């Protein structure tokens, strides 16, 4: 058994909230640079260079990459040998978000009641996903999610007979509907299988996967490749004004499902696909 004081969790969550909002991971930056080189539309190329400049400026001058610094989504993978001390784990996570958004000059974008809509003033509560894994480590991932793109995300409860083509059509439909609203170029996380809520969570997790890797199953890896190509032929382009760069990367996660179902969730994200992790 390993004891971990929850104050450490607060500290790490705070640091991750700030880090995620000022710099992107190397794979995302590499995809943006590659897109800038290959973009065929002059205006599209110009917009991509503005996004590159924006990233540089954000890091140098400590201005958040995007003013929508997101609702904090926190993934916790907890080794089953871990014993938390010093307080309630969930309070510690929320405190980390509170401190991170305050000390990091991040926008407070959360309303407490979805209908009464009063801003909570400190960007809490975060959405937290826990999982128990073997061992005595804790892995924390903070993925602040902006809502311009979150609003364009979709769930489709397909029939088994719809098959792989049905899945691809659903993804393409979601991307077309998102169009210029979701700040293209987009990044797309897809969840296939499970239940209604499981496929949505898979799609969210897929957004934290590396863009330069592929699904371990070859038919899903092939679907990732094909969808990327087909989406980039839609001519939505940077800022929705046309071009060959509509999507910087698409990742898929799958899970077993019921004999009667084929759930598909499409979680759309803009190029500001923020996720930072730490293992303790």
């Amino acid at each position: 058994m390993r004891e971990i004081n929850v104050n450490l969790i607060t500290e790490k969550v705070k640091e991750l909230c700030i880090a995620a909002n000022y710099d992107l991971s190397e794979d995302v930056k590499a995809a943006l640079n590659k897109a800038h080189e290959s973009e065929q539309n002059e205006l599209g190329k110009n917009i991509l260079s503005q996004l590159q400049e924006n990233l540089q400026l954000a890091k140098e001058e400590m201005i958040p990459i995007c003013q929508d610094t997101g609702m904090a989504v926190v993934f916790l993978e907890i080794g089953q040998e871990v014993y938390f001390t010093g307080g309630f784990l969930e309070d510690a996570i929320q405190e980390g978000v509170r401190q991170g958004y305050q000390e990091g000059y991040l926008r407070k974008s959360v309303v407490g009641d979805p209908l009464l809509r009063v801003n909570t003033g400190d960007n809490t509560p975060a959405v937290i996903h826990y999982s128990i894994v073997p061992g005595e480590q804790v892995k924390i991932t903070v993925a602040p999610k902006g809502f311009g793109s979150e609003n364009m995300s979709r769930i489709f409860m397909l029939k088994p007979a719809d098959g792989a083509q049905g899945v691809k059509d659903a993804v393409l439909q979601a991307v077309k509907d998102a169009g210029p609203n979701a700040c293209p170029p987009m990044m797309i996380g897809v969840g296939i299988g499970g239940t209604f809520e499981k496929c949505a969570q898979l799609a969210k997790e897929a957004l934290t996967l590396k863009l330069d890797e592929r699904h371990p199953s070859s038919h899903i890896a092939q679907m990732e490749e094909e969808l990327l190509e087909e989406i980039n032929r839609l001519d939505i382009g940077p800022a929705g004004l046309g071009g060959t760069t509509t999507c910087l990367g698409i990742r898929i996660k799958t899970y077993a499902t019921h004999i009667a179902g084929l759930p598909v969730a499409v979680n759309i994200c803009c190029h500001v696909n923020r996720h930072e992790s730490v293992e303790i």
Partner: protein
Amino acid sequence: MKKIKLPLTKEKVLGLKAGDMVSLTGEIYTARDAAHLRIWESLNKGEEIPFDLENTVIYYLGPSPAREGKVIGSAGPTTSSRMDKYTPALLEKGLKGMIGKGRRSAEVIQGMKEHKAVYFAAVGGAGALLSKRIKSSEVIAYDDLGTEAVRKLYVEDFPAIVVIDCAGNNLYER
């Protein structure tokens, strides 16, 4: 690049076509979801609203907080379609320009044609870069809304693209 000095008069609107790259200099106001709701409710009740809409440009923006000594934090556009419900009433009162990103409803476009207004897009996701073109920022109403308060901004050479002009031409419908 067309340089435009604000306020945005009808004559200036008539000179803009979908696809034009522009740079805006002058005073604009920020308002997003919650501020639009309050303005719309006030208009419906015949009450005063925080600023005169005549020849005005609204930027759909909720900035991140400013660091000490800075004018504003990150300051890019939010998705315009959430303001569609409220926009026709504002166009009737003389609103001439909107800066945001993404599609507009048929009702908004109809209102823009009727009252001669223009819809600009700024680059979504470039909030750090756009913040450099904002030279002053002052909360003038609804302070309790935090980032959603109404701010008066002075912008210099703020870059935008005319997406929908006052004839209804739409750059998103290619």
